[in-house]
């Protein structure tokens, strides 16, 4: 299987996610009162094994992640990931740096789930609205462990649509990743939604 989204469809999708992640960054900015820098999202269609490698995280590193599974017109997994240390720093920032870092573990899960919920839903909301789609989103779940524990799939030979964006809070030296991984089985429906959106834009542009 090859990447069968056209360059214009990839462009449209990148722009849609860019808007969603921009909103998410604004939400995070309001929660921690720090400027959030973003990279431009990258979107690819890849076998799961390669998608995991593209996450560009050391497989032995301890990661704190919030994941939300989604299903409906298309299905998959959205992830917000930090190194364990950066996750704790972010929690500390969220709580106004009032607690010593060693006392934060109890609050870590709740705080990161809340951050993940806000960030991932800002992305979901934008994508769903633009593509006029219907999906239901499960409750966010906190996972801690290495990449193999966090990034799960039924078969490494299956293909996924894979999106990655890196964000950082430069003043605090905290960085994390947002990633969306969509099952290939739902990609056809997703592509159709993207095509409708692109058709709407191009037909207006061409008059």
């Amino acid at each position, binding site marked *: 299987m090859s990447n069968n989204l056209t360059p*214009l469809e990839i*462009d*449209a999708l*990148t*722009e849609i996610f*860019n*808007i*969603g*992640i*921009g*909103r998410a*960054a*604004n939400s995070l*900015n309001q929660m921690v009162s720090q*400027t*959030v820098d*973003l990279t*431009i999202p990258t979107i690819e269609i890849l076998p799961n094994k390669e998608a995991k490698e593209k996450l560009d995280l050391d497989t032995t590193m301890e990661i704190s992640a919030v994941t939300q599974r989604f299903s409906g017109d298309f299905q998959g997994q959205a992830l917000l990931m930090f190194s364990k240390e950066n996750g704790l720093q972010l929690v500390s920032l969220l709580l106004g740096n009032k607690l010593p870092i060693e006392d934060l573990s109890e609050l870590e899960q709740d705080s990161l789930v809340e951050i993940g919920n806000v960030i991932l839903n800002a992305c979901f909301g934008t994508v769903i609205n*633009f593509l006029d789609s219907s999906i239901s989103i499960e409750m966010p779940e906190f996972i801690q462990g290495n990449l193999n524990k966090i990034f799960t799939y039924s078969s490494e030979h299956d293909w996924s649509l894979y999106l990655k964006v890196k964000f950082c809070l430069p003043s605090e030296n905290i960085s994390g990743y947002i990633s969306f991984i969509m099952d290939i089985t739902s990609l056809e429906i997703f592509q159709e939604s993207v095509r409708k959106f*692109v058709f709407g*834009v*191009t037909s*207006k*542009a061409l008059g």
Partner: protein
Amino acid sequence: MSKTILVVDDSLVSRMMIKTIIQSHVEGVDIIEAGNGVQGLDKVNNGKDIDIAFVDFNMPGMTGLELIGALAEKLTIPKVALLTANIQDEIKAQAIAAGVTFMNKPINEEVIATFLHR
């Protein structure tokens, strides 16, 4: 006299949407498009006056604000809008400090039309 409008955005779809709105509100407009800051600077090197510029913030290489700074060293553009999905106060403050209009993405036809006719 027809207006010349510069549109710089790394997203082709986004440029198409902006162009469509401009063309429906300004007759006989000459639109110069660029996909990044370097291209944007190249395209204004022919000495042509630019009346209005729409510049995306988050682009590979030069950011929109860096491009606006570089453009200001070359020519005077009466109206400049910074378009961005990154709606943090810090970015808005930087846009205001640069003397440009801050516009949220997704773009809104009414906002762009008001800006064009202001």
